[in-house]
């Protein structure tokens, strides 16, 4: 099998965790298939990144250009398309990130190759690439293979693949990439960072997290009372922010914050992967949800399958009673 590419992303002057995860997985696949792992790093200045990814890769292609300071996906697409046509890897791997959502589908069209996104497992069996995707709200797994082709593009689910220590010294090849195109039809105007107006939930020891099942903004007060009783803060899943019930700074998950509290008490949170990825490292997780099949029960340590409106008021009382003793 010909080589495996991993495109490594960087954020805030460091390699993104997801890229380390994909490098680890890529390394494992390359070892199994007895082929080369080639890491691609694309940045205005690739120093530092290239050396880092070289710990996993046999070779590193470090692509530099001043205009790569802006986060447009279009130059990335041009670069990867060229490299893929040149070097013809069997697999092009990257994390299923915001950048990948902009980049991978057009890349697959340009190269006329298949794309499997947000995969939870990737393997090579008898020279065939097999991937697993999680569908139907995490309740079913779908296993796919590919029609005969030279290259497949795969994006891997964030947090799915463990980071294994890299101990190689891949050969680094630097390329100054000429970007002739202007991409004038798309102009980057800047980043808008999260303002922390009230609360930094990443600092809380206890989080009482509410999901869509809380049903009305007014009911969040109950969660607030519970949080206070436990000395913690209220956080939430995405739909609560979508509905405008809590500000986005309280959102836990892929597009929100990653938290590591002592206790994560999830109330009426279904436990969709995008949320779970933000709280997986909580020391203790408790879930209260009416739906026995909610994915949250798979990651929780303790759970109550019941109506939160019945449980939470009593829970608040019981905590007060136990405190008094």
């Amino acid at each position, binding site marked *: 099998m010909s080589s495996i590419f991993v495109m490594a992303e960087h954020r805030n002057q460091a390699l993104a965790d997801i890229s380390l995860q994909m490098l680890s997985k890529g390394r494992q696949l390359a070892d199994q298939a007895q082929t080369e792992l080639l890491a691609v790093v694309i940045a205005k200045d690739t120093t530092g990144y290239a050396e880092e990814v070289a710990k996993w890769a046999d070779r590193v292609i470090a692509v530099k250009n001043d205009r790569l300071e802006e986060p447009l996906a279009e130059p990335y697409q041009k670069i990867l398309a060229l490299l893929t046509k040149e070097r013809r890897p069997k697999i092009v791997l990257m994390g299923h990130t915001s950048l990948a959502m902009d980049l991978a589908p057009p890349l697959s069209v340009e190269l006329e190759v298949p794309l499997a996104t947000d995969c939870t497992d990737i393997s090579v069996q008898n020279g065939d690439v097999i991937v697993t995707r999680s569908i139907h709200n995490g309740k079913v797994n779908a296993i796919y293979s590919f029609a005969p082709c030279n290259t497949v593009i795969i994006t891997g689910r964030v947090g799915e693949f463990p980071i294994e220590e890299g101990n190689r010294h891949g050969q680094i090849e630097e390329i100054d990439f000429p970007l002739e195109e202007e991409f004038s039809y798309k102009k980057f105007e800047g980043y808008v960072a999260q303002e922390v107006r009230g609360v930094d939930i990443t600092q809380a020891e206890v989080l009482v997290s509410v999901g869509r099942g809380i049903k*009305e903004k007014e009911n969040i*007060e109950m969660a607030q009372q519970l949080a206070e009783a436990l000395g913690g803060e209220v956080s939430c899943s995405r739909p609560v922010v979508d509905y405008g019930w809590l500000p986005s700074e309280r959102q836990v998950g892929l597009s929100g914050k990653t938290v590591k509290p002592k206790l994560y008490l999830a109330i009426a949170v279904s436990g969709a992967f995008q949320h779970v990825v933000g709280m997986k490292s909580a020391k203790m997780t408790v879930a209260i949800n009416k739906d026995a099949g909610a994915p949250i029960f798979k990651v929780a340590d303790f759970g109550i399958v019941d109506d939160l*409106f019945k449980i939470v008021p009593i829970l608040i*009382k019981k905590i007060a009673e136990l405190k008094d003793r």
Partner: protein
Amino acid sequence: MTLLDYKYADTIHRCFRCGYCKFPVNWMDVNNCPAYARFRMETYSCGGRLWLIRAWLSGEIDWSNHLAEILYSCTACKNCEVKCPLRFNVDILNMIIAAKSEMVESGRIPSSVKEFLENIQRQGNPYGHSRVKRGEWMEGTEIEPYQGHDLLYYVGCVGSYDDRAQEVARMLGKVLQKARVSFGVLGNDENCDGNEVSKLGEETLFEMLVEENVAQFKKLGIQKVVTLSPHSYNAMKNDYPRFNGSFDVMHYTQLLKSLISDGRLDVSAGFDAVVTYHDPCFLGRWNNEYEAARNVITAIPGIQLIEMERNRDSTLCCGGGGGNFYIDLLGGSERSPARIRAREAHAIGARILAVACPNCLTMFEDAVKAEGLEEELVVRDVSEIVAEACGIM
């Protein structure tokens, strides 16, 4: 022109702001409008809402989420209509519902109301639970699917899906079985009666539900219906005839009353208890039925029936009407009407708060717990009281 423009725009200004819409039984307080009791702002009384609707119609104020919530916090309990001294009182609740209709048509309603209605559109119940689970409450009983029986026992959404209400649905079934009543149920084929949908202003959805139910009942040859919920009773008795659905509809308390007086149900075993009865809005103020449940309760030896000061047409709504058992705009406070009522029942020394509506049942169960009164006051449906008196429990 919308209904609001056409029918009500000319008279909506007639609200005198006298405050009678909140009148309970005496002038010690003006708190018998459940939303006003909860929020203590004129905005949340019938008069307040009428003035807001008027301002909205004339363009003085714009639609906002807050306005929508103010309107949807109305539980349609009818205290205002019954107490308002002006001649246009027959229209005042309908004005609020018409204003809700306008919001429904524009699509701008609170998200929980949107969910409520979308769930009914999709699954025939406001919870969004699967239709194929609607009949699960029957498991373990020997209740039969309707097939030419004397009566259809119509359970409704709350009785079919809410845990506590399911217990009552089963218990009533057992009582009817004990009295050898010939009845059957629709199980998974039962669809929402539409009462709340109508009070939420979704007229066309209501029409669709009624038409479907009427067609279903006629196809099965159903002529007599006994309902668990006063909400179903209200819709089927008062609205279904407009859609060619004239059935002989009873609320179960009316049936139990005649079963007892006919000697078909023997409650002579009785048991001792001090009970107070909470009049449900959709049986009481909406349909003038105040005595059936009382007759049933007082027929049971050992039971002492005491009355809360606000009873019959002055009952304080539990806060569960107008979809609020789900959308819950009046919850989350010790001023929630259900909690106020639970305290009232407790204060007069009742040990059992008797209800005849699954919405009231669930609202009060939560309220009693929130008040910490579980040791001293239990919420029981009238059917459960009768069951115990017959030795079924």
